[in-house]
């Protein structure tokens, strides 16, 4: 069902008084829940819920030829699908531009932050490298799929173990793993999407708020530095507003990164215990 004019109007009215639809503060995130190891055939996997929004992520590894301009580096592909399980809005079929854009932003956040040390994923220079394939699927959409997708991506990457590579045949022994983890940076990358609704700026919108968004800026950060950014939606921003979002994103990263990381580490420990 589409969001009515009245609901959009009310979201604006409330924000003018500094209030939100679900009583949260403007820059508050919903409750975060992380599970890892949700799919045993994946090298790494995770399910992340933020409020009612849920994404599952999986990492598969393969062996591929490196790109000629990066002969000693592993390769990386990110896909994201807005599957119809998650919302009556989504349809089956090839990914639409919304899904492609989200996958690209997550990809850039992880790649540009150097979260994965691709040099360590080289098996034989110029011939064989590990290729990391990260696939994200929406399971339930109640807004802010992008920020959740990034957390799910990080959780699945942290969960991943490298499979056994048989040097003789030059092939991966799928279903057999080494104890070796992916070479990841100490700090994690996170995405924060800020939405401008009227004169207010909020994070972590629910669907109704997301559909009332005039403009958005998504920032991918690692260790407090901005690695990727995307401005989206039809309206423009005042420059001052954008500058304060830059600063706010640094604060959010400080506030959230330890919490998210602890949550992921706990989930991995819990999954091992089972």
């Amino acid at each position, binding site marked *: *069902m589409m969001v*009515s*004019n*009245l*609901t959009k109007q*009310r979201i604006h*009215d*409330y924000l003018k*008084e500094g*209030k939100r639809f679900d009583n949260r503060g403007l820059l508050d995130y919903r409750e975060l829940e992380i599970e890892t190891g949700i799919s045993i055939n994946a090298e790494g996997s995770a399910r992340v819920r933020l409020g009612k929004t849920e994404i599952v992520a999986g990492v598969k590894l393969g062996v591929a030829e490196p790109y000629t301009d990066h002969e000693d580096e592993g390769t990386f592909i990110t896909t994201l699908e807005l599957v119809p399980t998650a919302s009556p809005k989504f349809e089956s079929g090839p990914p639409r531009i919304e899904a492609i854009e989200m996958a690209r932003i997550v990809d850039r956040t992880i790649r540009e932050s150097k979260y994965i040390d691709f040099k360590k994923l080289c098996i034989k220079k110029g011939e064989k490298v590990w290729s990391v394939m990260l696939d994200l699927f929406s399971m339930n959409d109640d807004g802010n799929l992008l920020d959740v997708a990034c957390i799910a991506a990080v959780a699945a990457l942290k969960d991943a173990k490298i499979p056994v590579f048989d040097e003789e045949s030059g092939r991966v022994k799928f279903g057999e793993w080494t104890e070796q983890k992916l070479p990841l940076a100490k700090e994690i990358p996170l995405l924060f999407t800020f939405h401008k609704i009227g004169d207010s700026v909020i994070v972590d919108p629910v669907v109704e708020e997301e559909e009332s968004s005039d403009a958005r800026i998504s920032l991918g950060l690692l260790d407090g530095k901005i690695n990727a950014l995307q401005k989206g939606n039809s309206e423009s921003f005042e420059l001052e507003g954008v500058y304060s979002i830059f600063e706010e994103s640094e604060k959010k990263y400080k506030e959230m990164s330890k919490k998210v990381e602890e949550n992921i580490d706990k989930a991995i420990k819990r999954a091992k215990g089972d």
Partner: protein
Amino acid sequence: MSEKDREIVIPGEIIKEGDDYLPGEGTRREGKNIVASRFGLRDEQNKLVKVIPLSGVYIPRRGNLVIGTVADIAFNGWMMDINAPYSSFLPVAECPRFFKKDDLSEYFGIGDLIACKVDSVKRKGVDLTIMPRGLGKLEDGMIIQINSNKVPRVIGKEGSMISMIKEATDCDITVGQNGLIWIKGNKVDDELFAKEAILFVTERSFVEGLTEKTEKFLEEEIKKRGKTKKAEVEGDVE
């Protein structure tokens, strides 16, 4: 019959043996027995056995008050989305006399919310009306959506639950049978309070003694919010 006796039944389950009972909604007769045709609560009254739905989309019935969203404008009325598996139409002929046919978008535009009544349900679709008093465009206030099967719990016996919520929150509330609920208060906080109270009820629709629990919740919230309780109850809801 008390809540406790209402057992959850599943499709295909025999819910009454023997033929001295009549099969009601959500059931069918199979030989001597009455069998459930859907998932829900078994209900037995006056020799009639039926299944009360617990889930599923809204099924419109004649006379229901619903809140619909204008989806499109035709030459003779509005295509409405009432959250039901039928196409729904509000003909201009079912609107007050002063509505002129030349430009219907002057009255209701796409995305507007209209409180209407279900006038007829046919195989081809649902016809709506705003002729009865108090219906028409909802100009102000907020809308929340709940599962339509939980509407009876939100309204309560003879409107007792919703009256209690209205009184405690100082809000005007219209509950559409299709699960859309309109809330209008004088203050943002009042509307958010009413929303929380309604969600309190819907999240506990299985709980026994829900009226008492809701009453307690409202009292505690009023204390927390430092609100003064108004005695007066305004408006009524079907």
